[in-house]
């Protein structure tokens, strides 16, 4: 398949009330992703990384710039891109199996094939024994697995993941990270992964894109050349993590200062 190309993306959010200025969320975002790459986007909260993912997913139309999947420009959501949302987004009235079937159902896959495929992907994420459960009966980690199976089942070329593990406890998180790498090597999908955990980004990805905020922009694009499986306790791993951390820390410091500056200058003082 083709590359994903993010070209000059900018996004401005117009606020509802008239006297408030529109907020610049993203500015001058440019990067490309090769087929089969695992790319993480890290940055402080509020840097627009989720918005960027939604733009790639076609759920938000950017105010400027374009996203290309190979030669095709993204104009809306499409089943070539599977999305795993932060809040799982499993439909609570459907069983796990029926949730995984959803994408196939929407694409009019016959019932029998649908069930077979859904079961295959449930076993890939280790949920075979839970197909009859409702989402409310699952733990956070299991919900996330179901969400991953649901996004993979209709065979998208790209998997977009929006802070998928942020709500999980540390152990479950590490287990799922390893499992995700297993799924990645089995399915050969291109993965774009949003996280605020630098360690997670370094552990998982080929490439880490570091974003800064106000407005959200890319400050660094760092290839991670460590072989898989990676060892978190290795010196090299920690060095890379530290380096990225510093970038974010500096950025955050600058930001706090500029916010204080804005407060005193602007009309926000009350």
């Amino acid at each position, binding site marked *: 398949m083709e590359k994903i190309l993010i070209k000059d993306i900018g996004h401005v959010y117009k606020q509802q009330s008239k006297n408030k200025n529109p907020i610049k969320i993203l500015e001058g975002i440019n990067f490309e992703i090769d087929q089969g790459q695992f790319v993480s986007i890290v940055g402080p909260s509020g840097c627009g990384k989720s918005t960027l993912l939604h733009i790639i*997913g*076609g*759920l938000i139309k950017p105010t400027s710039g374009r996203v290309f999947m190979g030669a095709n420009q993204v104009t809306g*959501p*499409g*089943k070539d*891109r*599977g*999305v795993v*949302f932060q*809040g799982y*987004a499993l*439909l*609570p*009235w*459907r069983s796990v199996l029926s949730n995984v079937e*959803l*994408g196939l*159902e*929407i*694409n009019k896959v016959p019932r029998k094939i649908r069930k077979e495929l859904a079961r295959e992907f449930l076993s890939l994420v280790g949920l075979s024994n839970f197909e009859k*459960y*409702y*989402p*409310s*009966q*699952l*733990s956070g980690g299991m919900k996330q697995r179901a969400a991953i199976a649901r*996004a993979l089942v*209709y065979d998208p070329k790209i998997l977009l993941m929006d802070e998928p593990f942020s709500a999980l406890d540390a152990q479950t998180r590490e287990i799922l990270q390893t499992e995700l790498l297993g799924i990645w090597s089995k399915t050969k999908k291109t993965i774009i992964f949003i996280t605020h955990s630098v360690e997670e980004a370094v552990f998982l990805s080929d490439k880490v894109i570091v974003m800064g905020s106000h407005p959200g922009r890319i400050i660094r694009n760092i290839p991670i050349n460590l072989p898989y499986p990676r060892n978190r306790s290795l010196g090299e791993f920690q060095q890379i993590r530290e380096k990225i951390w510093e970038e974010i820390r500096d950025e955050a410091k600058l930001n706090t200062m500029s916010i204080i500056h804005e407060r005193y200058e602007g009309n926000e003082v009350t």
Partner: protein
Amino acid sequence: MKGMRVMRLLKKTSIKLLSFAYSNLLIVVLLALWQLLPSLGLLKIAYVSTPYEVFISILTMAQNGELKVHLLISLERILSGLIMAVIFGVPLGLFIGRFIRIEQLLDPILQLSRQISALALFPVFILFLGIGETSKVVIIFWASLWPVLINTINGVKGVDPLYIKSVLTMGATKRMVFTKVILPASMPPILTGIRLASAYAVMVLVAAEMIGANSGLGFLVTNSQETFKIPQMYAAIVLLALLGVTLNFIIYRIEKKITRWRESDAW
């Protein structure tokens, strides 16, 4: 082994019985007081009657066929009005809730209309539709329409946008968004609205039957009072309460069955 299972079953049943007895304790106490106080001469028996007399009165009416006549006609009025409200209110609510523009346009009218007491409108309905069955069914329809309509609108508006986004990423059309997400997601509030409506329906039914009817439980209450059949009056009141409770219970069961997925017992 078998003995133990029987023991466990016995224990389970006895716990259930105990909790049932506990939650109905006050009703029993009240019934006892109602029976005792007039018998002891502390309340005027002519005014308050006693549960025993009321029970006998219900039995008598059941035997001479009066009970069936009044109960059935009341039930028919309620169900006609309620079903009409559901048939009309649910699709309309789904439609209004889907389109913010329409909702904004209609909201003031909806808020105003539902504040107009159905009882205040009864003379108007009689004026237009006469004193017959139509005006009674229409007033019950009117009273039950608002909770159904408003709950449906709120149900549709309250659907988590994340669900909609997620099916959109799978390539869902607008129609699929509606059938796969919006409709099932708004089922619980719609059912709650119908349950609320059934309570309104009973209330308005009684008023309608008191004003212009010669049958039905509401008629039976006023008529018994006017002819000074006090036990029969209380019997009608008790029957109305039972009717309301039964309706509520049935809809509640349907609600539970449909929203089984809400119960989370595994973790």
